[in-house]
């Protein structure tokens, strides 16, 4: 750290420990992340808005509370980045679109932000995304295009890009994204951090710009699974939290090899995935091949649902401000207006059939494992390529069924680009997924890797 001459905290848990030992203050920590943002964000494009003064004031309050004996828990004094489709008081919510109306959510905090602040967390800024979480990086827009911290020419993934890239670069220690088809897990994988997609409905959505009403979830993101758990638990209703299962070595993990072959996984990504499975075997997990059905059909159902539900929200604004939406966003959303009601219902019936099949499969295995994405991050602004890459995902399957999933760092491909291990489970199995994530990260060091972004004055 700048003041203490120690290294930048490796995790929320690490920072919380140092804050309690007196080795670090919340004020010092917030100043440190601000200096890192000063030095790096011009290249990374992670922030849409920063509130340096507000964050320092909050850090001062956090330190005074601790001095007075008020400890709000492990998030007390921890700096967070919040995706810019989630409302934060004192900072505009832009949705990264010129078409966004002002004063979204009355300028108040989204409920998840209320809960994080109650737990002592400090919001340092709003993080970049793609327009309304559905567009693509667009250099014509007056917003930053978030870069991959492991290769600035490459995409950070989307749409919670700024949250993932900023976590990897140490611009904050925890972050919120959202996940409608993989928007939290994909950037987590491509930036080498951890991202949780909770069960649909597990976390409140008020104060979050909708995209797909029946898919959207708020996604906790951090360097480690343990940190994601801290964020998840702080935002959850206590009555909805499950006790840990204390997963033993008897976990049965299914791998849909036929689907992975059909997707054409890159050899470098597949090799990392096989290594990750070996780690899980070493932890006592039993790995079996499974037949995951309806993957392309569910991807289509996700596409139809998101388009129709997106149109339901954006339609009136889109009619009035067509040109203020970027091409990618308006083309994606307007498809919903051109879809018939029977088509939408057929999508929901296919979701039911696929969910029933998944339930049957999850009666035989506990977890389904796959690479989070079959390929490594592409170069920025190759828009057709980006669109094509999003069509070969497995992540949206879990949004369509509403079930939880997690992306864990599983290493780097031969080009030095990060890849993610994706684990999906039954409804409300977040704690089990986090347990396995913690055990995996106790055996690996992928989550501890940091990108080489050059020296930062005053920081290690």
């Amino acid at each position, binding site marked *: 750290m700048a003041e203490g001459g120690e290294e930048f905290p490796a995790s929320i848990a690490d920072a919380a420990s140092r804050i309690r030992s007196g080795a670090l203050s919340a004020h010092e920590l917030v100043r440190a992340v601000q200096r890192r943002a000063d030095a790096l964000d011009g290249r990374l494009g992670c922030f849409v808005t920063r509130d340096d003064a507000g964050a320092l004031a909050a850090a001062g309050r956090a330190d005074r509370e601790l001095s007075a004996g008020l400890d709000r828990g492990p998030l007390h004094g921890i700096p967070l980045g919040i995706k810019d489709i989630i409302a934060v008081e004192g900072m505009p919510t832009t949705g990264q679109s010129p078409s966004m109306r002002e004063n979204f959510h009355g300028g108040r905090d989204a409920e998840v932000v209320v809960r994080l602040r109650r737990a002592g967390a400090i919001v340092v800024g709003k993080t970049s995304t793609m327009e309304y979480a559905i567009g693509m990086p667009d250099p014509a827009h007056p917003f930053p295009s978030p870069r991959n911290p492991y290769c600035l020419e490459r995409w950070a993934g989307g749409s919670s890009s700024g949250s993932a890239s900023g976590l990897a670069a140490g611009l904050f220690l925890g972050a919120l994204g959202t996940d409608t088809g993989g928007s939290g897990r994909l950037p987590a994988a491509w930036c080498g951090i951890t991202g949780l997609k909770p*069960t*649909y*409905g597990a976390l409140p959505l008020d104060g979050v710009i909708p995209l797909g*009403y*029946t898919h959207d979830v708020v996604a906790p993101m951090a360097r480690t699974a343990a940190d994601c758990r801290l964020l998840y638990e702080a935002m959850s209703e206590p*009555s*909805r939290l*499950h006790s840990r299962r204390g997963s033993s070595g008897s976990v049965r993990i299914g791998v849909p090899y036929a689907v992975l072959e059909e997707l054409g996984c890159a050899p470098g990504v597949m090799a990392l995935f096989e290594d990750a499975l070996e780690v899980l075997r070493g932890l006592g997990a039993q790995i079996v091949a499974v037949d995951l059905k*309806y993957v*392309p*059909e569910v*991807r*289509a*159902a996700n*596409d*139809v649902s998101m*388009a129709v539900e997106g149109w339901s929200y954006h*339609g009136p604004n*889109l*009619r009035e401000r*067509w040109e203020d939406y970027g*091409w990618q966003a308006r*083309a994606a959303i*307007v*498809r919903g*207006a*051109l*879809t018939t009601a029977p*088509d939408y*219902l*057929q*999508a*929901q*019936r*296919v*979701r*039911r*059939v696929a*969910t029933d099949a998944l339930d049957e499969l999850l009666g035989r295995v506990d977890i389904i494992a796959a690479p989070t994405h079959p390929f490594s991050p592409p170069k920025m602004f190759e828009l057709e390529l980006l669109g094509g890459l999003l069509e070969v995902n497995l992540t949206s399957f879990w949004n*369509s*069924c*509403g*079930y939880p999933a997690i992306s864990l760092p599983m290493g780097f491909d031969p080009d030095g680009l990060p890849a993610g291990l994706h684990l999906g489970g039954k*409804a*409300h199995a977040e704690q089990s997924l986090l347990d396995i994530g913690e055990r995996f990260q106790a055996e690996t060091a992928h989550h501890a890797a940091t990108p080489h972004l050059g020296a930062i004055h005053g920081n290690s």
Partner: protein
Amino acid sequence: MATHDQSGQARWTAAMDQLLWLAGLEVDAAERDRLARTFAHYRAGIELLYAVEVPEATRPYLVTDVDASVLVTHREPGEATTESD
């Protein structure tokens, strides 16, 4: 689905015009044609949905189904089962 023959293309263009008009959208011909190309790809996904063998009695997926499943997993030992669970 869009076809590559000229009459098919003309019908597709006319359909796009009608759909956009019904949606209350006014776009120029170039934008309409660009949207039509995107939409044709999207329609192929919809066709995929109709190729699934969906049992006749299958109800649509409801988000409340997954949300309500928390009641089942949270039930305390001995707690009564209700129809709504």
